[in-house]
């Protein structure tokens, strides 16, 4: 089902709408947000200079650092009493990034998530279990209101206590699961330990996964444990922009539809900042064109993707972004080679004898970087030859894909850490 008529607008009408919203937003931030005004004055740009969508590229970028520098409310375009809600990122490094929502922002957010939930197959008949952590993190509450708006029954189970999660799923006949892909796999593992086969004994047929990359290999792994008939879609967002609701996959699984009447996307070369033509891969930059609380202008997401403006088979005309191929700040540079953890994940998932959990360790030995990948055995064997062959298989595949030699550490099942929120699978010990 297509939730909103904005999702099927002809390109011209969409652009008209975007331009009027962009002009309005730029004018508002220039008048109300001193740091933006200063940045625009610095390059001699006035709101009236934005005459076409092409003029977007004249505007200065906004980065996470700008949010930290203006902590907590310096980038807000409204006074605090207009806010209904405040969220913040975890802030593992330095101050958290703070965002706020006005009444209109809350409605817009709910609308965006409702669209994405519908793309992922949700209907009013669904029982939706939300296994994202509730709290300052935007994921849980975003999905919560969006799904409720559709009319689905919400089970706000949050994260943790996985056995109880499985009990709810069984007893409430949960049909839709919201989780990170890695926690969804963990839940399947716990269910099996409890003697419950998620494929047969549970009714979960829709997976709305987010907050982590969903690679093809991870999707295949989801099907393996939750059943081939599960529709697993990924959706994208970040708290700075709104939370979940920026984009999501439809049933054709051919890229994530961006709610571009609210989030105007561009792709840039992350090194030079230059805007790249359609179809080229680069860093995603988003301008929030209908946000009141904290309307970010040309926000650098650090996520690497590309845009596709071709209309989709589902009928939506909104621009699609590829499933992310990594974050520019997740990228590891090992012996001069660019490595995305998702590339390593893909290799691990392709080896049948290994489970889906892994850990990547990068160390410095003398002057050389050393890459170690810890993996869990999914099989039992009495043969050293077989164990060596498994290691060799992973090593060879990694060498082909990365051009690097890695050390493979086989571990018993259930040895590596499991995650309920975003998985932290990389340990870079070089900077310590």
């Amino acid at each position: 089902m297509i939730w909103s008529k904005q999702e099927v607008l002809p390109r011209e009408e969409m652009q008209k709408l975007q331009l009027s919203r962009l002009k309005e937003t730029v004018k508002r931030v220039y008048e109300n947000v001193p740091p933006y005004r200063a940045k625009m004055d610095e390059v001699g740009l006035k709101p009236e200079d934005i005459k076409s969508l092409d003029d977007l590229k004249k505007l200065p970028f906004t980065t996470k650092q700008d949010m930290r520098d203006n902590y907590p409310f310096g980038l807000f375009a409204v006074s605090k009493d207009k806010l209904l809600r405040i969220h913040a990122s975890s802030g593992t490094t330095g101050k958290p990034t703070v965002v706020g929502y006005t009444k209109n922002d809350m409605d817009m957010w709910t609308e965006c998530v409702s669209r994405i939930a519908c793309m992922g197959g949700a209907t009013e008949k669904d029982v939706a279990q939300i296994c994202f952590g509730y709290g300052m993190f935007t994921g849980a509450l975003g999905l919560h209101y969006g799904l409720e708006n559709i009319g689905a029954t919400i089970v706000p189970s949050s994260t943790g206590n996985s056995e109880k999660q499985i009990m709810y799923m069984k007893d409430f006949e949960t049909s839709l699961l919201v989780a990170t892909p890695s926690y969804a796999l963990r839940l399947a593992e716990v269910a099996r330990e409890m003697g419950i086969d998620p494929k047969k004994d549970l009714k979960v047929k829709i997976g709305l996964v987010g907050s982590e990359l969903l690679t093809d290999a991870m999707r295949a792994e989801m099907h393996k444990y939750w059943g081939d008939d599960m529709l697993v879609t990924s959706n994208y967002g970040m708290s700075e922009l709104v939370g979940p609701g920026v984009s999501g996959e439809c049933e054709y699984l051919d890229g994530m539809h961006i709610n571009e009447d609210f989030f105007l996307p561009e792709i840039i070369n992350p090194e030079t900042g230059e805007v790249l033509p359609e179809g080229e891969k680069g860093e995603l930059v988003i301008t929030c064109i209908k946000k009141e609380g904290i309307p970010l202008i040309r926000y650098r997401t650090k996520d690497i993707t590309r845009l596709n403006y071709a209309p989709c088979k589902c009928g939506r005309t909104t621009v699609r972004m590829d499933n992310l191929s990594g974050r520019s700040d997740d990228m590891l540079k090992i012996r001069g080679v660019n490595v995305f953890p998702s590339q390593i994940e893909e290799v691990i998932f392709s080896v049948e004898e290994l489970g889906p959990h892994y850990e990547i360790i990068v160390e410095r030995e003398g002057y050389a970087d050393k890459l170690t990948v810890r993996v869990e055995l999914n099989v039992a064997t009495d043969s050293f030859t077989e164990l060596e062959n498994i290691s060799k298989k992973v090593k060879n595949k990694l060498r082909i894909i990365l051009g690097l030699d890695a050390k493979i550490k086989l571990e018993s099942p259930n040895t590596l850490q499991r995650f309920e929120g975003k998985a932290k699978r990389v340990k870079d010990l070089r900077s310590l």
Partner: protein
Amino acid sequence: MVVKQLSVFIENRQGRLGEVLDVLKNNNVNILSISLADTTEYGILRLIVNNPELGKDTLLKEGFSALLSDVVIIKITHETGSLQKFLKIISDADISIEYMYGLSVEGASASIVLKTSDTIKATTVLTENGIDTLSGEDISKL
């Protein structure tokens, strides 16, 4: 007779062997023979126990990678050349030995656990030559 051997994968990490033994102890699985082969990264612990099925199931439940495989256990006397005699029978039958270790039994004889390329054939050849092999039942009574 074919006997079930319990094999467990263990990482070379301090205390890991103890964890396996704890699980077996807590489930009243008695160890009759033990062999630990290792590489720089990990080892395979091979055990002859009184209740291999229970041993495997409890280890799997505790998150270990464990399985049962078929071995032959022969009884030999404490005499020079007795082992050599048996091995000749096996190699003459074109069966290769993957690994072997001793099983301690009190008295005048000793037992050897053999993992061969063909367990059924090895058992048959040994029986044809009038050599007794221990059964699972014999083991559980030890």
